[in-house]
């Protein structure tokens, strides 16, 4: 048995081919197309509440944010943005001037997930189903990582006559070894749209798979995120800097800094009030207060220890780190560069004269910039320049990992739709 199917009951062997699963999914397309958007929104809202109440899902990392994101009001806004202001397009034709317009699903959406964020599949699956696509989701690891529990609670959700159990027939979550080329090809060739989340190798491997000519590719590839604290905020006092650091610490802690939206390098503008070392101490204090990490792989441990040693041994750099283990690390320097991401509570603070020095580092590879500015106009001036250079998001500290639409410059749900026009 090469395929594992992950469902409310856990992971179970599902044969050596994906075709039976693909066939099952395709049989649900007509049914799903008729489900009103209002019912889908109500179901997700019901699910949202259950996630926080149910002991199976309550402890999952990121579930609180997922629950908030699934609230009807939030998904309604997401739909508005992704459907040119009228989610009614999803339920049928809407008259526009002298023609009719509708948003049809792409069909079967194949999703390759990254293994870094337990709740990530839901941020892909929900837009897929809201757009009334049947979805085939491949997890990165055989361990469901909580996905089975998320599905179990979804199966029990219901609202407006729609049962989660029924909706789940339109979605299949699977795992198979990525080296199983025939299975990868089968999945790819079944897709009307391919959604790929992951690092460089995963993205390259999936996008190289054969696909149907009409298939749409939506890639959320490897990205790097940074932070910036401006001079005026550093000099402002009144707790603004403390709040910004606390926000960044949250951004660092979430998903163990493995998400592409997690800050790796944070630039600190030189100022008259607070030295780089003092800012470093504030980060250290914040990181020290975090709950201990549950565990860490040997590779990341070595990377952390390597970064620490390198920064300690270089006379032009400095480092502060947790004692007795590889829990957290604050590396400090004045070399204006994007430091190699180490992850797992390892942040690089780099002093710059002005945020303008950071601009040449910004390319489309930089996804999110956490911006801590005292002055809104200054923040907008930076954001104007940063997004022109390629950055996709400029958000306040504490919000960096909050998945939203657009993400990585894309309106995912919109791209999972086919816009059709009728002029009778």
């Amino acid at each position, binding site marked *: 048995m090469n395929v594992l199917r992950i469902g409310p009951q856990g992971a179970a062997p599902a044969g050596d081919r994906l075709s039976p699963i693909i066939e099952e999914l395709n049989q649900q397309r007509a049914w799903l197309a008729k489900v009103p958007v209002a019912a889908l929104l109500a179901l997700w809202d019901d699910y949202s509440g259950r996630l926080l109440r149910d002991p199976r899902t309550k402890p999952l990392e990121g579930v609180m944010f997922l629950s908030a994101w699934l609230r009807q009001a939030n998904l309604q806004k997401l739909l508005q943005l992704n459907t040119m202001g009228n989610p009614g397009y999803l339920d049928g034709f809407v008259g526009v001037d002298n023609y009719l317009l509708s948003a049809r699903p792409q069909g079967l959406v194949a999703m390759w997930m990254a293994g870094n964020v337990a709740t990530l599949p839901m941020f892909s699956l929900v837009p897929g189903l809201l757009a009334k696509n049947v979805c085939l989701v491949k997890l990165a690891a055989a361990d469901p990582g909580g996905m089975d529990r998320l599905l179990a609670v979804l199966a029990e959700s219901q609202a407006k006559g729609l049962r989660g159990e029924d909706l789940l027939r339109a979605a299949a979550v699977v795992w198979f070894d990525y080296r199983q080329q025939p299975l990868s090809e089968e999945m790819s060739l079944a897709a009307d749209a391919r959604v790929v989340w992951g690092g460089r190798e995963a993205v390259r491997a999936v996008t190289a798979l054969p696909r149907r000519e009409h298939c749409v590719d939506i890639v959320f590839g490897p990205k790097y995120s940074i932070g910036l604290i401006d001079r005026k905020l550093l000099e402002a006092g009144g707790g603004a800097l403390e709040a910004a650091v606390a926000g960044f610490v949250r951004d660092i802690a979430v998903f163990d800094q493995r998400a592409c939206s997690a800050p790796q390098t944070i630039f600190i503008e030189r100022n008259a009030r607070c030295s780089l070392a003092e800012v470093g101490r504030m980060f250290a204090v914040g990181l020290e207060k975090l709950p201990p990490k549950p565990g860490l792989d040997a590779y990341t441990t070595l990377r952390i220890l390597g970064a620490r040693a390198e920064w300690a041994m270089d006379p032009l750099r400095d480092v502060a780190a947790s004692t007795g283990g590889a829990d957290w690390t604050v590396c400090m320097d004045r070399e204006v560069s*994007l430091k190699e991401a180490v992850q797992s509570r390892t942040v690089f603070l780099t002093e710059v004269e002005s945020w303008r020095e950071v601009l040449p580092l910004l390319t489309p590879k930089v996804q999110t910039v956490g911006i801590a500015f005292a002055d809104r106009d200054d923040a907008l001036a930076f954001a104007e320049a940063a997004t022109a250079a390629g950055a996709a998001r400029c958000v306040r500290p504490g919000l960096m990992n909050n998945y939203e639409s657009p993400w990585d410059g894309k309106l995912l749900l919109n791209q999972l739709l086919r816009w059709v026009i009728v002029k009778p």
Partner: protein
Amino acid sequence: MNAATLEQQVEELIRGPQYALRQAEKDARLTAILRELCRDVAARCPPYGRFLDHFGPAAEDWRTLADIPPLPVAMFKRFLLAAVPPERIVRELHSSATTGQQPSRIVVDKTTAFRQARALVSILKEHVGSSRRPLLVLDAADSTAAGDSLSARGAAIRGVANFASETVFGMTRLPGGELQADWDAIEAFFARHGGDAVLAFGFTYIVWTGFVLEAERRGRRFQAPQAVLLHSGGWKKLTAAAVTKEEFGRRVGAVLGAAAEQVLDFYGMVEQVGTVLVDCPAGHKHAPAFADVVIRRSLTLAPAAQGEPGIIEVLSALPTSYPGQALLTEDQGVLMGVDDCPCGRKGSYFRFLRRIEEAEVRGCGDTFAQARDIR
């Protein structure tokens, strides 16, 4: 402890029996030595001084070897870590480096070089006997090319050659750089010494592909029942080819005409030449008297319990010219026991498990900034 006493204590450990000290005594003696040695090296090597200033307890508070903050071996790729002025450097060792990577650079002064050579002889004596013997090196002669710079392979070959009464190189290098067995030389070596206690040495993958597989393909077998083959180096390619340690030993032994138990794997690295950890008949690796191994847990870095896999740290009293006294390797191992190995050697003993590789799943945030294509 003054410099003379320190020197004398290290010498005692190098000259004495290598596996007779019980772990508690060894830990106490080595901790005292390394406390002084690390302080001394830190005073002469400012980057290492800064490292010790930043991490772990102060040297005077080191109570056991596990208290010494281990320096990640990768730092030898980032910095030239010299504790001696350039005029006292007699040799610079370097690791092989994959494309785009910096090799490790290790500077060796006369004291360190002497210690390394004598230490290796002391260790090998305990595994293969004390007499010098003919040595067949399964590598090319140019791997040990003379000069003040030497590769890891070259350093290891030179070290083992200290134990040889005669050295024959059993491979030649083709114009493209590949190694090819020199069957004439190998045949002649075994024709002269086949019945004697001979030593063969090579790097694991080279021994396997260049010697064993080729000999099997050509149907060559030798009659050297007293031969001992020492080999070292990564198992990654052999693991990928599904070759186990047992199969390696069996097939090497079959080609040599020797027992599989006479094929000895040793663990060592260019950052600690002379400090090699050789397999005992029970298949365990033992640190010699002047060195030790601590297996550390990921995340907490606390010493791992017996049977628990962890990151291998190797400690050694040999280096004086660079900070190689306590090095955190990029390998995983497991502590198998203390003072009770069936082979009779005392001290802690362990097994090598694998090289620590990048986790398969590091996610979309796994980008490399300057090194890759962010810029």
